[in-house]
């Protein structure tokens, strides 16, 4: 009997590996209401925690009276800083080398700061008791304008570190100063500015916003006093890092801590940090001996855990009259709020902001960043971007448009003139990054051709004539943006968080019947890792994706990794997956050689099997090899088929893209309609086009939200505004436009499968495209720059100030 081997293309298709639009394996449970999120956890005897929060932005705590709260039926305990001081837990370390109050000690520094933690038998009793904790405050003058933070007479915020003038990132020169970070060549950049034919200068502010995932942050802590083991289920984007930090803070040995991230309802950077709720729940469980749940409500989420941005960027860009850029200078005033809880790799207090030379070949540049304290919530996370990259990209993309205005040049043409050319890669930027690969001219040309950019500009010229003649009250704006992301943090030599190198990991076990489980150090929050990592592996080891389980988020079973944020899962854990797969294949090759009685080198890999070179019918499939690994003694080879890879990436990856946005603005109402949005993304090798497209749609919608409406502000006495969904803008399906997506493919040369990561690109590029479009609509009337968010009021006001309402 001869069994004909199916052709390799047919077998490859059955694997559902790299490049196919595989349907998601996660969806069966989510569409049936069987997801398992933190708030779904219900354990016997579980108690609920809830916070008493400060109504003031800055105040001294005079007294706290718990008696009335403790009298509420069902209330078990009320914790204050006084209870945490003996445990040395009233402050906790932040990711940025500062400390943050777990429960306010002596004074409060921002509105809604955690003051006391009520523990009760149900959430209603806890809420009742929160109202009955009597706290007497003496109000202090609040500081909410970062530009006044370092004034001589500015109020002293951080009394706990007032004498500590050497901060985590160098000397502090004022009691509200956190750090100064400088990169680049100062003198040469100043010379370039002095010698320039043209200098464009602008203050570009990126407002305070919040990632606002639909599920808020929360946890369930359970201390088992019998075996000494602490288990914490939580909304953690980096479960292993949480375990290590929890061990260092609590002094519980790390092997006795188990951190589990169950299903997570979106993260977008919000769930990277460590928050007082986690510490209080753990302490409460240790004290009471039963599990304690804490889940924040939406107002708590928006006003206390992890804001993003709040960067005020002054830029100067030097150029020749023909548009050639000769230098870039930037100073950032960074508002970090009351504690520096910014989530960045240790050596980068302003993240990767020094990617701010963007996609352009700028010979010389200098950046300095000053971080300051104010009476606002701490945070400073990367909201759907790599560390401070959205700020950097917004800065350069607005500056390029400002320069284009000054030169009276088309913004697309100015970009093309200054792009890093394809042959310059790998390219080292003036601020020290080595861009791995890119082909910007091709991407931009494809974007301009597909959208018929020339025709759009002609339409705009006609619109402007009609507007001038009084035939319309609508102005058309065209936003062009080109971005280069820097993701996949990162090489251990320069990237760590709290001393933990930012490698990632994958462990694979092949079962005797030829199916497999892969465990990773990352954790999906909606990205679909269980689907896409199985695809990477299917192509590497020839086992169908449907027969590979991908598991993440349990520190007792998953290999150590630094988690999911900064688009690092595919560049780092994805690489680890491919590398672990190759280890499996190497051992499989030895087993196949034994089974086929040939030398290893005489075998050739063929989709899902090894066959003898020149004789495709003499083969052993991966399933046959797996079975052999478990059922027979093979001389010189250990039984079993498993591998683990810890991948330390040699470099970051640099996804890029060209976005074009067309808006129509009603100058009398300020209403801005997005007529068209075209997004071309190059994320290198594409693992699952369906998932990529979904990521792009979602990222663009978050960019729309930020550019057109999101903002968290504070008044002069420190009241937070915009911290509920009544005020904080989340676009509905009605405001969200139709997204057109496109791509080019420039594989990463150093990544095992050439992938670069994509989840955050659309947010990085999208914000600039929207903002450039709104600014462009008024450009012919003399507008140089107007600040985000471009909500109806602001846009109307811009029109008003330009004299359009006379």
């Amino acid at each position, binding site marked *: 009997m001869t069994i004909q081997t199916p052709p390799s293309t047919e077998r490859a298709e059955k694997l559902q590996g790299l490049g196919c639009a595989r*349907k*998601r394996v*996660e*969806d*069966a*449970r*989510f*569409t*049936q*209401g*069987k*997801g398992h*999120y933190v*708030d*779904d956890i*219900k354990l016997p005897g579980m108690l609920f925690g809830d916070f008493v929060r400060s109504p003031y932005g800055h105040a001294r705590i005079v007294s706290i009276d718990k008696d009335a709260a403790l009298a509420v039926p069902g209330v078990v305990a009320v914790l204050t800083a006084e209870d945490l001081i003996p445990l040395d837990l009233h402050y906790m370390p932040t990711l940025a080398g500062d400390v943050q109050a777990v429960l306010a000690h002596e004074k409060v520094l921002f509105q809604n700061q955690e003051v006391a933690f009520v523990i009760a038998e149900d*959430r*209603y009793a806890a809420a009742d008791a929160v109202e009955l904790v009597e706290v007497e405050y003496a109000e202090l003058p609040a500081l909410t304008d970062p530009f006044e933070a370092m004034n001589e007479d500015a109020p002293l915020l951080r009394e706990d570190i007032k004498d500590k003038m050497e901060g985590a990132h160098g000397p502090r020169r004022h009691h509200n100063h956190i750090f100064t970070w400088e990169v680049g060549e100062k003198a040469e950049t100043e010379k370039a500015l002095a010698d320039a034919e043209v200098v464009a200068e602008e203050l570009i502010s990126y407002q305070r916003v919040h990632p*606002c*995932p*639909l*599920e*808020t942050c929360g946890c369930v802590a359970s201390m088992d006093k019998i075996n000494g083991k602490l288990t914490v289920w939580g909304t953690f984007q980096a479960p292993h890092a949480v375990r290590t930090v929890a061990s260092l803070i609590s002094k519980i040995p790390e092997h006795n801590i188990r951190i589990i991230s169950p*299903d*997570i*309802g*979106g993260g*977008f950077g919000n769930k990277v940090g460590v928050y007082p709720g986690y510490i209080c729940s753990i302490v409460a469980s240790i004290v009471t001996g039963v599990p304690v749940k804490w889940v924040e*409500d*939406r*107002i708590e989420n928006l006003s206390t855990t992890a804001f993003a941005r709040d960067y005020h960027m002054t830029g100067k860009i030097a150029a020749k009259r023909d548009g050639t850029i000769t230098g870039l200078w930037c100073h950032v005033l960074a508002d970090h709020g009351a504690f520096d809880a910014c989530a960045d790799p240790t050596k980068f207090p302003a993240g990767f902001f020094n990617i701010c030379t963007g996609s352009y070949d700028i010979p010389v540049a200098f950046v300095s960043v000053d971080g300051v304290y104010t009476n606002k919530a701490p945070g400073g996370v990367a909201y759907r971007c790599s560390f401070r990259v959205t700020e950097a990209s917004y800065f350069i993309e607005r500056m390029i448009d400002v320069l284009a205005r000054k030169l009276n040049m088309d913004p697309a043409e100015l970009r093309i003139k200054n792009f890093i050319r394809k042959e310059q890669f790998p390219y080292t930027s003036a601020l020290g990054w080595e861009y791995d690969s890119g082909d910007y001219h091709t991407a931009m040309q494809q974007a301009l051709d597909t959208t018929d950019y020339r025709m759009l500009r002609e339409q705009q010229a006609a619109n402007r004539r009609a507007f001038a003649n009084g035939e319309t009250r609508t102005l058309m704006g065209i936003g062009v943006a080109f971005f280069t992301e820097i993701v996949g943090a990162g090489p251990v030599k320069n990237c760590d968080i709290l001393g933990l190198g930012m490698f990632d990991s994958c462990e694979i076990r092949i079962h005797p019947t030829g199916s497999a489980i892969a465990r990773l150090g990352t954790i999906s*929050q*909606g*990205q*679909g890792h269980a689907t896409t990592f199985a695809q990477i592996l299917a192509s590497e080891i020839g086992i169908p994706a449907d027969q590979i389980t991908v598991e993440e988020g349990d520190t007792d079973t998953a290999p150590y990794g630094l988690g999911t944020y900064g688009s690092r899962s595919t560049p780092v854990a994805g690489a680890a997956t491919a590398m672990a797969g190759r280890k499996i294949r190497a051992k499989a090759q030895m087993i196949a050689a034994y089974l086929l009685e040939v030398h290893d080198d005489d075998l050739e890999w063929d989709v899902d099997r090894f066959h003898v070179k020149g004789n495709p019918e003499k083969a052993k499939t991966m399933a046959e090899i797996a079975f052999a690994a478990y059922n027979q003694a093979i001389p010189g080879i250990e039984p079993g088929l498993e591998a683990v890879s810890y991948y330390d990436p040699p470099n970051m990856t640099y996804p890029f893209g060209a976005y074009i946005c067309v808006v129509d603005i009603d100058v009398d109402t300020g209403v801005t309609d997005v007529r068209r949005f075209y997004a071309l993304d190059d994320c290198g090798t594409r693992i699952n086009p*369906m*998932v990529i*497209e*979904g*990521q792009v*749609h*979602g*990222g*663009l*919608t*978050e960019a729309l939200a930020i550019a057109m409406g999101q903002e968290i502000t504070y008044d002069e006495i420190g009241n937070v505004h915009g911290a*509920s*969904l*009544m005020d904080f803008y*989340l676009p*509905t*399906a*009605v405001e*969200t436009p*139709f*997204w057109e997506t496109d791509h080019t493919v420039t594989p990463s040369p150093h990544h095992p499968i050439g992938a670069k990561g994509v989840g955050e690109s659309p947010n990085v590029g999208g914000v600039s495209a929207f903002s450039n479009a709104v600014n462009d609509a008024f450009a012919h009337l003399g507008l140089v720059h107007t600040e985000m968010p471009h909500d109806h009021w602001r846009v109307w006001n811009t029109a008003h100030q330009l004299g359009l309402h006379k």
Partner: protein
Amino acid sequence: MSKSHIKMTINGRSVEALVEPRTLLIHFLREDQALTGPHIGCDTGHCGACTVDLDGKSVKSCMVFAAQADGSEITTIEGMAAPDGTLHALQEAFREHHGLQCGYCTPGMITRAYRLLQENPDPSVDEIRYGISGNLCRCTGYQNIVKAIQAAAETLSAPKEAAE
């Protein structure tokens, strides 16, 4: 606090319980009835993650007391599939068209879309977008959700057309 006696039908099952008058329907469903499909996203009625079908209307269950639902008929995402386990066309279409990512809005979104299609079996894109505007999604940008609802509408109307 004295408790109220309530009776209702949830996903075809008769339920009787004693609840505090202030217990929200979402807490009653999730914590007393172990129906954790509907989620809590905002507590203020904006996000729609807690949407259930109550007496033929889409209702945000964080805005209703359990006591107010006394005598009602409720369907949650857990009651969307047929008793034999066959998924509803919407559940199939959301997977087929990648209408979800983190899954947190999905139960509310599907439950809302179910009622929308009951009211308007052949909605236009604009009608779908308007019809689901009480349900927020942070992951998908809605485009694939709209596509999924369109596809489900087609599937649901197909047998009727065939019979004609």
